[in-house]
């Protein structure tokens, strides 16, 4: 492998085993000799650390600039409220009100203010933690503070913090909204984890549309696969999407999971499966 590679693991819905797959993949990559970073970008509910059990050695707060208004300088012209797309600042009755949690930190209001009444102050809304999981595997995740709603800037911070390893595995949050786009934007390859159920396939379809829209090469992992459930298989065949691996519906995987263990480590046969998977992805992504 010559150049650095970033692989995102995503799924159209929660509960498909996305974290187990991405954490296992990270371990497999590290064990096959790649300097690897695992980035948990599911910042609303990060849980990769439960399986990878990293030693955290560095943490930093992430904030965005929010406006603070000097009422003495303010002439109540109302321009700030007009420019704000998010209703985070509004001028009523000669007062300017700000709603910090709605502010996206775009800086528009302070730019338009004719009297320089607006200054920007940083408001923290989450934390990025980095650490080590031993041999070759770096760990990084973001945790959004309770009650916060804007995860994309935190996701970007996680990705910036952990970049630089040969191989990066990004664990994206489930779904297809802004946080997922922030997590997979610009990656080299997206692995879509799905289940062979009607719901699973329905969400896979939406997720496929999203990655196609973003123009990112992608492939599918069918998790909890049962030979006779062909829905996901048929969908991939009809849409010309490569299935990289089918992970069987295996009691032992669920048992390992409930103990906070990765199938990669705890269940016989899975070490090989994930090592093969990482090789396949590298090959696919390199094309």
């Amino acid at each position, binding site marked *: 492998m010559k150049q650095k590679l970033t692989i995102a693991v995503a799924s159209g819905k929660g509960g498909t085993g996305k974290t187990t797959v991405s954490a296992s993949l990270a371990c497999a990559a590290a064990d096959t000799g790649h300097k690897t970073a695992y980035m948990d970008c599911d910042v609303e509910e990060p849980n990769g650390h439960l399986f990878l059990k990293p030693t955290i050695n560095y943490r930093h707060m992430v904030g965005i600039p929010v406006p603070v208004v000097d009422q003495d300088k303010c002439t109540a012209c109302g321009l700030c409220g007009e420019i704000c797309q998010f*209703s*985070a600042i*509004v*001028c*009523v*009755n000669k*007062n300017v*009100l700000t709603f910090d*949690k709605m502010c996206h930190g775009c800086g528009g209001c302070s730019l338009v203010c004719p009297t320089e009444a607006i200054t920007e102050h940083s408001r923290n809304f989450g934390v990025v933690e980095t650490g080590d999981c031993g041999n070759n595997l770096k760990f990084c995740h973001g945790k959004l503070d309770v009650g916060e709603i804007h995860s994309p800037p935190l996701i970007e911070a996680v990705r910036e913090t952990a970049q630089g390893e040969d191989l990066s595995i990004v664990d994206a949050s489930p779904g297809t909204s802004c946080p997922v786009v922030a997590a997979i934007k610009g990656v080299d390859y997206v692995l879509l984890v799905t289940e062979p159920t009607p719901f699973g396939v329905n969400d896979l379809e939406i997720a496929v549309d999203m990655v196609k829209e973003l123009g990112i090469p992608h492939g599918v992992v069918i998790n909890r696969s049962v030979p006779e459930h062909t829905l996901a298989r048929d969908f991939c065949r009809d849409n010309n999407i490569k299935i990289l691996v089918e992970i069987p519906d295996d009691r032992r995987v669920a048992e390992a999971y409930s103990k906070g263990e990765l199938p990669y480590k705890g269940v016989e046969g899975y070490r090989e499966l994930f090592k093969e998977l990482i090789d396949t992805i590298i090959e696919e992504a390199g094309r």
Partner: protein
Amino acid sequence: MKIAITSVGQDLESKIDARFGRAKWFIVIDTETNQHQVISNEHNLNISQGAGIQTAENISRHNVEAVITGNCGPKAFTTLNSAGIKVYSAVDGTVAEVLEKFKNGKLKQAGGANVEGHWA
């Protein structure tokens, strides 16, 4: 005094709209003369966040002293408060009925938001 009532339609016989930020219309009424004016709030119906704040701002331009509505979230309440506008609660009835109740002192003034904000 001038007051505003959230309404599903454009006349005094319309039902009041219980949702403040997503109300389609406001009827602004002068309680002395009963003269009224219909204000559209349609541009705030589809915005993804801050509808309550924008609606409060919209109303504050019409120099009303009070608003009668069903559910008012914390941010809308703060904005109305800052504009010096009192909030009175009414759950059902037509605009005309609610207006009568208000004139007879039968409506309660809200001391704070009576629903959680969507983002709280």
